């Protein structure tokens, strides 16, 4: 469950707030698509939920914990356990193999053998069993994004944030990713996905549209 109360976000470099007076309730297991033009605040919205912004006013309540009231350290720890993000640019580390990239989020925290077994399961789930020892530069864009999804899921988060996950993919790969997202959603994960792609957006149960003027007026309502 995600509950946002009176959220205002202002960047020091901007005169106007990027998000203003947002109140929102997203139930556990929902798939919410965020649509809107560039600069309308989609990524900022995701950052609010992933606790990466220090300039957030209001209450960001995730599973009954207001992460905005937590110290940076505790917030980081909370998010690590409950929220994962997938990016448009995949952001895989080139020096690590597929398996290692997927294991990476848990390496500082857990036993390697346990992570490895979990990572192999995820590789199977994303259909890259034959790519376990390959490196990112040896994969296609779609495969890289699937690795990024597997990496996001290794921590078993209840909330998956996706920032334009198909933005760099062709339609074929996009469809594979959408299928993967559907599988993930079926497992009860909350998915919040920012996209420009109408087809992708429509996969969501709810679509949250960001308009620049709405933001300025503070009238973003679910």
């Amino acid at each position, binding site marked *: 469950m995600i509950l946002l109360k009176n959220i205002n976000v202002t960047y020091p470099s901007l005169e106007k707030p990027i998000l203003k007076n947002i109140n929102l309730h997203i139930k556990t297991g929902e798939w919410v698509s965020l649509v809107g033009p560039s600069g309308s605040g989609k990524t900022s919205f995701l950052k609010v939920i992933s606790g990466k912004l220090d300039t957030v006013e209001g209450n960001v309540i995730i599973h009954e914990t207001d992460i905005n009231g937590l110290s940076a350290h505790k917030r980081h720890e909370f998010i690590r356990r409950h929220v994962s993000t997938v990016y448009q640019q995949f952001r895989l580390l080139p020096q690590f193999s597929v398996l290692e990239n997927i294991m990476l989020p848990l390496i500082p925290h857990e036993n390697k053998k346990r992570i490895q077994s979990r990572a192999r399961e995820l590789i199977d789930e994303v259909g890259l069993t034959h790519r376990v020892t390959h490196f990112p*530069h040896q994969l296609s864009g779609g495969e890289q994004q699937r690795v990024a999804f597997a990496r996001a899921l290794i921590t078993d988060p209840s909330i998956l944030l996706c920032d334009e996950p198909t933005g760099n993919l062709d339609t074929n790969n996009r469809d594979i990713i959408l299928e993967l997202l559907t599988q993930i959603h079926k497992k009860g994960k909350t998915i919040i996905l920012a996209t420009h792609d109408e087809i992708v957006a429509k996969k969501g149960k709810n679509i949250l549209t960001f308009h620049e003027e709405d933001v300025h007026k503070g009238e973003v309502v679910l």
Partner: protein
Amino acid sequence: MSSVEIAAPIASLGYFTGENKTFTLAYPHTSSYIETEFNTTDGVNEYTIRDEGGYFYVLEQEGYLEGFDFYKEPGHGYIGEGMKPEFGIPLTYHLTVGVDQEEEEKLTGIDLSALKNPIPAQLEWSYSQYGAKRNIPIIYLSDSFVSLRAETSLSELDWGSEQTIQLKEELDLQDNEAFFFSEKYETLGDRLSKIERLNTEGIKIFLSDQIKPFYYEPFSYNYDGTFSGEENYSFGISETPIFYRTKPIDYTIRKDQTLEVKQIGQDSGVPVYREIEKQGVSVREKREDIPFLLYPVGTFTTKSHQESLAASPLGIYQQAPTTKLDDGTTLHETITPGSFISSPAHGIVSLEDAAYIKGDAPIDAIRLRVDGINSYNEEAIRKINDVILDISEIGGFDIVVVAGASPSPVIMDVEGVGEVEQSWTSLGAAATISEGWNTTNLLISSVFLMISIVYIVNHAMFRKYTKKNETKLLSDIGWKVRHIKQFHLIENYLLIIFSGILGGLILFILYLFNLVSSITLVIYLIIVLLTFLIPFLIIVLVKNKLRSTNRFNGVKFKKVWLKNVLFYKKLIILCFLQLIFVTFLFNFVPANLFVTNQSTGDTNLGVFINDLILILILVILVATLYIATTTIIDSISSFLFIRKEEILTLRDIGWRVKDIHNTFMKESIAWIIPSFIIGMAISIIISSTVLTFTVELVFLSICITLLLSIGSMILVYNLIKRTLKKI
């Protein structure tokens, strides 16, 4: 041999006695008992000289000569009517050498012209009766030190003029007859010893300033600490044909390299530490066939030549003090031969006279000065070697090169005295230092040049990688690759020109002050021109591909940090190399300094030269430290900057800053510490080859590397922490 400027022979003759002589005390105010004994000291212990001194009764007698008559202990020298209290001074012994006056003067600069003075006619006439076969003029060291002190006790006697007259009556003497005319004179001592002594005063009379080797100027002590000339005295040169040859001290070398000196006997109550052999005859013992008599004809001094004689061959004029190790007390030779302290020459005779005294093969050494040597350099070494070759061809000589010789402190444990430090003349310190530093300087300069080149290459490489985004941007806005490269080249060249001008300016100022030679400016110009090549080669020729992913495939390391090190090896390798060079320098230079100091630093010249070089070494070490610090700061900062995206990703996928920090620390340790260890190992291997392998050297290297490692880790820790905060 035309290349020999001076050839100064020397003949060591041994220890000769000074003259027989007395010293006189002024008359006291009342009847008195005066007893005197003589002491000599080595600076630590005082030794009473046996069989010298004696006692003297001065008895008031109104109207008799100076108002006193006397009784002198029998067997203690001459007695004469009206004599003041007078005691025979113990014989003193002085090292004497024979030299060729002109050559010696040229070699040392010491004025020995007094050797040409004629023998005083009066003195010669006085001793003509002995018919000595040769009258030998001798000059003596005017600033010599003779360790002699008189300990006099002066007791006032309960005795008046009437009692003196009464005693003379008892001895059947007239009032105007001296006591020594009495037949009972020899037994008079017992009678006088019964006189009550009212009070006794102890007087220490330092005779060092009054006594000169081979020359006597009569003096009298005035009880108030002053001396005055004296007309009543005894003097004779009859003992001058006696001399002592001394053998070298039989040192025992201990494990700690100190020397042990055992006392082997006594001479007149004074310890003797080396064998002495009496030579010649006493005129008193043998009235005929006197081989020679020494006649003092003048003085010489070495005081003003001590600095220039720092490297004085054979140390015959050396007056460097011997000191007690624990409290620094200055020690000196006693008046007898056989002291453990090597005495400087107190007396000089002509080489001809020395040959007469010594007989066959009188010359112990010939000291040569090679022509045209103004400084100790390669040319000087060549000239000296040429002369050595020439002399070798003549044959029959032991050749010792003393160029660069200087006094070197040696620790000795002397029986009855304790541990002392004595200066010995060591040979060839300058050669050792010069050879050592020539090799070292070449090595240091080469390594430093390599460090500088690697530094510039490394810096340029990092600049190239960190400007990747800028390059991409320029490319995106339509710049051709050629234009981008030109742009970056100009940027780099501007930096080189600016730093080149600045460096050149500093060098030029140093040149104006004669601190660097003109060749340095030329070399600098060449280096600056060569530096222009580096950015060209890197920007134009080196591909922009930082990550060697192809080769990386299949490499399986379980540790994240180890994978990272391998992945970024292209970036790390230059820093790694640079730190190896830096560590090598940091280990090798102090190790070299340490070893050179050990082998040459115990000489004054060595200390002087090492001190001079130390400044250069400090400059090199500071510059190396600067390069090491800059290398680490540059590489770590650039490394973090290049990997900014990676850091952000790691944070976004749940890594704490602490986790990232730890990983980067491990990565840094993984290449910095091995580079230090390799640098240290190379240094130890080269030091052991070029210098000498010692455990201390290895220990020193380990300590330096440990310090370097700790310092670097502190630097890296803070650098990563600060940079991660910014990211």
